[in-house]
């Protein structure tokens, strides 16, 4: 399956991935409205973790053996058998945060205001996820396994 590959060595912590992820999943898909008007503000599903010179954008890995899916209490998370993506059914999520504990990447974010989790959906409605399309440095690459720089 196609995944978003992370190249931390060229990530410069510009956080454009976070901004474009937020906008892409907002109601308006407008950067100003998404940040200034829509409340509660959406949480980015990719988060850049920074420490000194190190900078790592972290987002759902869509694992082959997804601990979050196995742990999900409600059936809200499942692995799509066709695409391989780990997808969230927002109606079924109750915000128990069990998946947050079981994700070894820390890639699932609790959204306490909405009582559901925020996680990457690979922008399934787009040919390329918004974070990848707007990364100026190709620190995020959308590709099949083993295909890289």
């Amino acid at each position, binding site marked *: 399956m196609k995944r978003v590959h992370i190249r931390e060595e060229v990530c410069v912590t510009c956080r454009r991935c976070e901004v474009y992820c937020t906008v892409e999943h907002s109601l308006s898909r407008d950067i100003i409205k998404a940040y200034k008007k829509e409340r509660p503000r959406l949480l980015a599903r990719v988060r850049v973790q920074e420490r000194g010179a190190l900078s790592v954008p972290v987002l759902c890995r869509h694992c082959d053996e997804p601990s979050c899916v196995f742990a999900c209490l409600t059936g809200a998370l499942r692995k799509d058998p066709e695409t391989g993506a780990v997808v969230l059914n927002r109606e079924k999520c109750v915000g128990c945060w069990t998946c947050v504990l079981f994700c070894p990447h820390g890639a699932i974010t609790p959204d306490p205001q909405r009582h559901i989790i925020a996680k990457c959906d690979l922008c399934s409605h787009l040919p390329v996820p918004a974070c990848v399309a707007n990364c100026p440095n190709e620190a995020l690459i959308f590709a099949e396994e083993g295909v890289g*720089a």
Partner: protein
Amino acid sequence: MVPKYVIVGNSAGGIGAAEAIREVDSEGSICIISDEPFPVYSRPLISEFLAGERTLDGMLYRPRDFYQQNAIEALLGQKVAGIDFPGARVVLEGSESLPWERLLLATGGTPIVPNIAGRDKEGVFTFTTLEDARRMERFLEGKPRVVVIGGGLIGMSLASALVKRGVGVVMVELLDRVLGAVLDEPASRLVEGVLREAGIELITGQAVREITGKSFEEGRVGGVVLQDGRQLSCGLVVIAIGGAPRTELVKNSPVKVNRGIVVDRHMATSYPHVYACGDVAEGYDFVYGTGRLTPIWPNAYLGGRIAGYNMAGKQTLYPGGTAANSFKYFGYPLVSAGMVNPQDGCEVLVSRQDRSYRKVVLKDDHIVGLVFAGDIQQAGVAFGLMREGVNVRPFKDALVRDDFGLTFIPQGLRRAGLGVSPREMVP
């Protein structure tokens, strides 16, 4: 029809097994039997049901057509009377019987009801099934005060549901703190603070000696008497002191039972072609390095999944599970996993400020337990290191930092974890 796979139990473990079997074997017939009449639903959500936030449809763990889609025969509302192991047949109530080639026992747990005087009165409940929640519902209309006996996981989720319903709750816990089995003391105190803020009356170090009747209706709950003689009036009593493996089907059988059904790393019992998983089984606990009861939903699903693979002939090892829970009482997030009350020879790292608390328990530089409260976003990273058995010595002090995350993990390990293969790195 001779079902190839017979699964007793229609919850996380049984469904995990059925799904794994279907990944490997699309042909072999599967039969799931449950004494509950409902399609598989999320048991932890019965508190949301009671709170009036979810209906059965909103609690379904799989779509209604799950059984049909996976060619599973579901005998729901059907009780198993017994199991004939030498004859390899499950005997259903009403004399019909089902032969099996592979059998999975995923019967779950049953609530423990201590011998309290008056426990047979109308208005005394346990709280583990949807039916319990439905029956309790009718008693809540007049908003009676409710006494919850037990400050464990079930008592907690029940109490939060009752508060949402506007019902007054008194919680009586035998130990000196709530959630004693899954939290350490500081974390218990944090939860207790949250409960009291929500208006729950908490009585610790006490037990209910007697459940008394109403003055003009002796058969119906009117109050309780505590060990110290205190009397509390109430209209409802819920006994939530814990569960026990539901092992009645394997009593006096060739299947080896300790506290729960004993299984190996393939989830196989001591009897050929018979497997067990979930709350009824003593699956491998990687923290203690032995089989133990670890009755939580995620372990039931994963154990069931491993059982399913092995039943269908795909040899797979259960990686093990341990007690691991996420709590969110009245919006306050808290997670715990493994050994939170450490034994001798463990190293404990703690950080604490305001309403945030972190604790990591190490043994020989390996994580064996953790508590994250307040901010839990990165708890999964620590729990992942714990499950993988990673030696954390080089970065252990970072584990309880506020900004702990993947950036503190050595590069090779971090990249492997994120699925970054060397080929993908920039030359």
